[in-house]
């Protein structure tokens, strides 16, 4: 089974403070730690487990700047066989559609049975690279995938629906699957893995290496152009409780008691 896994190098923001930068269209990147996107991490792990079980290869792909090498190297260190980075200043400003087109132009010449992506990117949250890529490649897809089973030329996948329900669908190979977090437990990078990764080269491709024009990529090739970024409006006026932990605890306990909840 030859697997291509598409990953994104993103800032970790779940527990970080975010500030909007001076352009008003992006967040301040200084001080943020970048790593592989969370659901892509699960996709990578799934790809490696599939390789370990069924044989074949894993190729990691990303669209990003040179900084993204650390994410690709992580993929290699965890068990990917090769890595390709798609980099060009013309790619800046690409939304999911333009990104999917770039990935497509690099992937269509490769042989593969399965493409894995994360379900969503934790930065822009578009939730669509995987299925667009599938459409461009003319292959079926499934999103929100929580379990994958192979039999002959099909995969049976569990898709996560709302309210704790899942559906099982059967999709023909080759297929693109967008993997949801929690599908597995991603492994740590080992020192041996790093050593192997450092011996592998990261292939870098630019706009001239793929058959797309300037108009297909970046803002020109995107569906969405960000006009401004702003702090979300407050739905409820929160009353902040201040003091030492003991004081705060006492106040909260009083509030709970006054509502008759004890």
């Amino acid at each position, binding site marked *: 089974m030859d697997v291509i896994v598409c990953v994104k190098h993103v800032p970790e923001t779940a527990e970080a403070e975010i500030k909007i930068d001076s352009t008003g269209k992006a967040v301040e990147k200084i001080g943020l730690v970048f790593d592989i996107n969370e659901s892509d991490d699960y996709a990578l792990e799934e790809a490696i487990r599939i390789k370990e079980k069924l044989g074949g290869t894993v190729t990691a792909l990303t669209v990003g700047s040179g900084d993204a090498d650390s994410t690709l190297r992580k993929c290699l260190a965890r068990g990917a066989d090769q890595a390709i980075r798609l980099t060009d200043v013309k790619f800046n400003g690409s939304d999911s559609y333009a990104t999917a087109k770039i990935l497509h132009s690099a992937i269509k010449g490769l042989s593969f049975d399965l493409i894995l992506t994360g379900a969503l990117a934790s930065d822009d949250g578009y939730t669509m690279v995987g299925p667009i890529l599938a459409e461009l490649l003319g292959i079926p897809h499934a999103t929100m995938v929580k379990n994958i089973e192979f039999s002959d030329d099909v995969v049976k996948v569990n898709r996560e629906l709302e309210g704790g329900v899942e559906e099982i669908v059967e999709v023909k190979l080759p297929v693109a699957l967008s993997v949801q977090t929690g599908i597995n437990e991603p492994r740590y990078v080992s020192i041996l893995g790093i050593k192997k990764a*450092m011996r592998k080269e990261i292939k870098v491709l630019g706009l001239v290496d793929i058959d797309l024009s300037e108009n297909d990529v970046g803002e020109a090739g995107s569906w969405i152009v960000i006009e401004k970024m702003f702090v979300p409006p407050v739905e409820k006026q929160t009353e902040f409780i201040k003091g030492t932990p003991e004081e705060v605890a006492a106040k909260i306990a009083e509030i709970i008691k006054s509502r008759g909840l004890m």
Partner: protein
Amino acid sequence: MHFELDEEQKEIKRAVKEFCEKEFTPELALEFDEKEEFPTELYKKAAKLGFTSMRIHEDYDGQGYGLLEDCIVVEEMCRVDPGLGAAVSLGNLMVPDILLKHGTEEQKKKYIPPLAKGDAISAAAFSEPEHGSDITRMDTTAAKSGNEWIINGSKEFITNAPLADVFIVLCQTDPNVTPSHRGQSIFIMEKVTPGLEATKLKGKMGIRPCITGSLSLSDVKVNENNVVGELNKGFYYTLALFDETRITVAAQAVGMAQGAFERAFQYAKTRKQFGSPIIKFQGISFKLADMAVKIEAARMLTHKAAWLFDQGRLDPMATSMAKVFAGRVAMEVTDEAIQIYGGYGYLADYHVERFHRCAKITEIYEGTSEMQKLTIINQLLKRM
């Protein structure tokens, strides 16, 4: 000349950081500090990923990197938690180092791989109740009888002694030679050897997940094949060994300082007094700036000493400079971190007091700061 870690070293740092930040949780750190127990599971996990065998050659299931890469790992572990970090990084201390240099192929094959893989723990017994900094004479003696050596004596402050599967022990093999240090040899022996007994020392000030013990040897019989390297070379082997391993102690100190600094820095940004975060007050912010400078300087010295070693140009002065400076920095920075936290800093739950308690050991073990200064001045006298 360049002052940056290379890409591979950065990857190593990132991998160990990710592992420690997920595994060395503050709760686990408090628990093991309180219980004074060795974190066996963590040690095994770290070992399986290769973090505890950086300097061990690949032929013996190690990672085949240099001392600098090991320092990167040790610093990162101690940054996340000084107690767990020290314990995990010292799980297989010194035995692989001494065997790689002086052991027979048979000894290497037998003892190193289990230590590299985290399946075994080792201890190195040099200090004695009466001999700490001065090891020119050992009261532990080994007397030849046929093809065996019979060892008697006691060792003190031995890291891992109560847990170790394998020991190296420095003994006086020739009690009559002058100077006496020319009559010392190193033996390797297993836990199961009759007459070898370890007792756990409790109530250490810091690095409490790292277990320390006393070792008593009464009529311990070992085969002559258990001598490591040449007979009567033990003292020289020991000095050279410490010149290597004490660089990692400097790395421990740098990590402990960095960890306490990061905590204090975050705290100073959020703690408000007189209506503003305390980092806005120069009394606090200048402390933090000083701490950052000291840590960076200590790290530079440590990396330089490690780099020299990896170049095959071991410099005892560089090693001692790194250790004495990093140890002091660790004490000062962790002390200031508590000061920045104020009353909270004095509480275990806020962690910085643990960093301070742990930091102290770096000024003591593997050669006290005073002994480092002695080395430095002796080297200077030779060179200038």
